[in-house]
């Protein structure tokens, strides 16, 4: 937990930026990777990760534990994650409140669940299985939402908090996902940002979104293909002003620009964390 608190702003690592990332000496810089991309027997991918780890703290941000699937986490996948955790000793480990693997097939997305008591039990119990195996708590991320469920028995924040209370996990608050979900489902993102229990948040994510090609701004997509939007920066500043500094990640997965451009976005987040945005502007 101590190491975690020392992290400031970090970047999602893209393979094309490996050399720049490795060489970068920006103070406090850390990198986040999807562990699934490194669950291999050997070769250059793992060698890169090992080399990067020698210079920068790493965060393993899983996209595929399928915690919300109505089954226990895939044992082989969990073992591969555990091996990677031992190998790179990450500062942070996180996953999503979503499902993707079902009946032995993986769907590359973060699929939604109705927030029922049954889902609550299942997710909390699955997180406990993961944490027991990794011997450390994980942070749980709020995904972006595109659908209205009649079956919801909890609102999202109550659901996340209750899962954290039962399992001992913390929260990874993705501010862009809060903004996208609030826009798509019609509620106030500020209300969510203001209500998140400060003591549960151990990491924050920032990313860009896009508008649906046919519906426009009525349906925002969590596409990670553009810079962080001004509205999301505002929500982030509002959050940090209330809860204080937290390790913050800037993500970009499509239309990936130069490393320097991503580093500039990371510097912006760093300035917010240092409370020096006004001076920097």
């Amino acid at each position: 937990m101590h190491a975690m608190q020392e992290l400031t702003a970090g970047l999602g690592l893209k393979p094309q930026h490996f050399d720049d990332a490795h060489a970068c000496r920006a103070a406090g810089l850390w990198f986040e990777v999807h562990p699934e991309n490194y669950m291999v027997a050997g070769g250059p991918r793992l060698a890169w990760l090992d080399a990067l780890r020698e210079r920068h703290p790493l965060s393993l941000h899983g996209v595929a534990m399928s915690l919300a699937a109505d089954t226990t986490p895939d044992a082989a996948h969990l073992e591969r994650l555990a091996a990677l955790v031992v190998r790179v000793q990450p500062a942070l480990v996180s996953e999503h409140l979503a499902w993707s693997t079902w009946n032995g097939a993986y769907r590359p997305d973060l699929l939604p669940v109705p927030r029922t008591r049954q889902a609550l039990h299942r997710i909390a119990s699955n997180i406990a299985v993961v944490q027991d195996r990794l011997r450390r708590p994980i942070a749980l991320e709020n995904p972006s939402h595109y659908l209205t469920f009649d079956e919801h028995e909890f609102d999202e924040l109550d659901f996340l908090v209750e899962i954290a209370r039962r399992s001992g996990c913390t929260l990874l608050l993705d501010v862009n996902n809060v903004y996208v979900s609030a826009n798509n489902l019609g509620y106030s993102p500020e209300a969510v940002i203001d209500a998140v229990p400060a003591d549960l948040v151990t990491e924050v994510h920032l990313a860009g979104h896009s508008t649906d090609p046919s519906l426009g701004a009525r349906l925002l997509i969590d596409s990670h293909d553009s810079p962080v939007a001004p509205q999301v920066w505002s929500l982030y500043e509002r959050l940090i002003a209330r809860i204080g500094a937290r390790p913050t990640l800037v993500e970009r997965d499509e239309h990936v620009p130069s490393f320097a451009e991503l580093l500039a976005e990371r510097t912006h987040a760093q300035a917010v964390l240092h409370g020096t945005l006004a001076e920097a502007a």
Partner: protein
Amino acid sequence: MLLADYQDAFAQALLAEDPRSAPPQLARLVGQPGFAVYRNTVLKGCIDALHANFPAVARLVGDEWFRAAAAVYARRELPTTPTLLTHGQTFADFLARFEPAAELPYLAAVARVDRLWSEAHVAADDAVLDPAALASLAPADMDRVTLPPHAAARWTWCDEHPIYTLWSRNRDPAADFDGQFDWRGEGVLLTRPQGAVKHQMLSRAGSAFLSACAEGLSIERAVAAAIEIDATTDLAALVNQFLQAGAFAAVQALAFEDA
């Protein structure tokens, strides 16, 4: 609806040609515009993974054709693990039976080489045989030792098509080529002695030699396998090619009954 039943129904509607064919209890979800976001993301994720893993195939057929074919495959075969670097284990077999690919009979063979490249890329790290270790062997050792291939070494031979030329020109379009080539069988050897995967052309005799090594046969029997294919094989040149490529991991003594 129980969570498991919901997940069965949602999973089915995600990849159905027509999502409106979803079970009635899902109608409220499938009818919302946001449902298409999940359908598009899953399909795009599968197609992007195949595009990344089969670049020579994609260059041969063009992106539009490739993505259309990959979409058909994606609806039939979802990834079996989230490590998408290795997705597409059966894609070459799919292309071999895919009607629109019938005009390109070599496409499945090119896909197999792309697949072998992925395997070589993620294979376990391994020692590379020091050529001096082989040089120190006495003639009498040849039926007592075997040369286990390096963990990342992959090879294939194709009787019908110049598979190395077709694959390498499309996998690495920036490389220099002299333009002309004969349409005859070729083989490919992929190795990863350290860092990046390297590729080179492989003879049919060379492929037989490596396959014998992979079976744990003695050097003598690997030589016999190569000679049986082509009596004119320059064995010294062949073994030197393998040593330079880093195709072997070690010299290993055979148990007496195996020799």
